[in-house]
């Protein structure tokens, strides 16, 4: 018997956890879909219906929210001293349990949220075509890039790890740690800028902006999309984007490894 990874056993585990997923998280998906319905119904009353971009943004944000809460809803008991016993004792390897946890929380949540929200939006479009600003699926390509899904995956990975690290109030504590980390990073960056000298940094930014291509709207530089377009021409920014993506990749990998170690070594 393969004690590290067996595809048949892994398949059975994913199947079992997918079945349990809808019992544990189905109501949350329904309630989040319900709030989207309320949003669409409320838009009927307004003078201008929400555009495709607003609806898509809301769908992505809603999916992101679902991914934040899913690990603690579906696997919240995995590290519980008593409730986690059936999980830890299940004859499956730590690797299989880790991959299944990521697959189920990511795929099941993303798919169920996107399918239900898109279905509701399509139904709304078919019922009230005059009050809708357009069919969502036709305008969704640009927003639903691989990068969007990777962004969602990063969020999910952080909260899967947080779910295994903390025993109680998992989402709140994970958020608190992330906020604390952002503050710490900002503080370190502040110290770095101070050490280098603010004038040097300002000069560097000016040099960068001098090369900024005219065809890109200045507002778009704020987002990574703008940076990406610019990075094609600017090697420094290209390196910055590369480092950012690498760090995000490392964060995801660390989350996976951390979750694996915790599944393997948590004591009950």
């Amino acid at each position: 018997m393969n004690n590290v990874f067996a595809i048949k056993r892994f398949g059975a585990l994913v199947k079992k956890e997918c079945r349990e997923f809808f019992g544990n998280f189905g109501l949350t998906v329904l309630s989040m879909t319900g709030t989207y319905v309320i949003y669409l119904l409320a838009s009927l009353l307004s003078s201008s219906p929400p555009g495709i971009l607003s609806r898509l943004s809301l769908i992505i944000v809603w999916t992101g929210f679902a991914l934040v809460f899913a690990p603690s809803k579906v696997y919240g008991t995995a590290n519980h001293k008593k409730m986690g016993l059936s999980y830890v004792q299940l004859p499956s390897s730590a690797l299989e349990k880790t991959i299944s946890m990521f697959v189920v929380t990511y795929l099941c949540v993303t798919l169920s949220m996107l399918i239900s929200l898109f279905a509701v939006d399509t139904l709304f479009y078919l019922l009230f075509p005059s009050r809708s600003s357009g069919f969502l699926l036709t305008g969704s390509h640009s927003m639903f890039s691989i990068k969007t899904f990777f962004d969602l995956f990063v969020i999910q990975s952080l909260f899967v790890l947080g779910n295994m690290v903390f025993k109680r109030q998992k989402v709140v504590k994970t958020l608190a740690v992330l906020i604390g980390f952002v503050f710490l990073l900002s503080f370190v960056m502040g110290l770095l800028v101070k050490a280098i000298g603010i004038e040097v940094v300002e000069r560097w930014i000016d040099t960068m902006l001098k090369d900024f291509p005219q065809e890109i709207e200045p507002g778009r530089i704020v987002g990574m999309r703008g940076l990406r377009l610019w990075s094609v021409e600017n090697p420094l920014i290209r390196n910055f984007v590369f480092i950012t993506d690498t760090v995000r990749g490392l964060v995801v990998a660390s989350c996976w490894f951390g979750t694996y170690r915790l599944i393997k070594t948590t004591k009950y």
Partner: protein
Amino acid sequence: MIEINNLTFSYSKNKVFDGLTLSLTKGNVYGLLGQNGVGKTTLLKLLAGLQQSTKDACVVNGFHPYGRQPEFLQDVFYLPDDPESPTGTINQFVRHNGPFYRGFDYKQFRSMMDRFEVNPDEKFKNLSAGQQKKAFISYALALNTKVLLLDEPSNGMDITSKSVFRSIVAGHISEEQVIIISTHQVRDLENLIDPVIILDQKQVLLHASIEEITKKLSFITAAKEEEGVLYSEQTPLGYSMVKANVTGVDTKVDLEALFNAALQHKEWFKEHFKNGRQ
């Protein structure tokens, strides 16, 4: 089947076991007795891989439990004293989890549930603590794992269910299995457990079969208290006593009296019993 060799284990500064050595063989229902906090549950958790032991100190079916390898997990199941009930019905839980164990027998599970008179289509949350316990015990037994670790299984059960439980376990144990039952309710499990293990002060105080115990000890009830007994307790029928068996006549083991006698005369017990050592 289970080899514990010089096991030392602590919860931070609180040492629970210090050089514990124990060898358990298949085909037996072991009774694990001891005072509160002596480490009965901890020992079961170590055997199930829920707590960390050093690699050579604890070997179950040839595996180090804390490695939690699937092959190990398929043949070991630990049922805690107060298992937390999952969401959904008993049937859903059993059908989702049971098939992961190679020995799982759903018909056996249904048959045990029938004997306990619990409806498997009920949701866990709608059942009393005792009914939940019966469902978990039926599930644990139906998994047919080689090692089954039951922590206070009769707690919360009514009198009839305790009798059904004894009957089910007695009929269930096979030559390939070992069941370890940790309990304070020794009277509930009399006639079921053999051998008996008593833990005390980080060590094994007694590890002996019922046959060995009856050969060395006499359990008697008399109107008057006798001289030179190891343990004596006044009961409505007179005195219940434990003394060294010098006549060679076998008597029925009173587990509660045995436990009390062992705690009062530790040195005598250590001297007269091999404690599982060959």
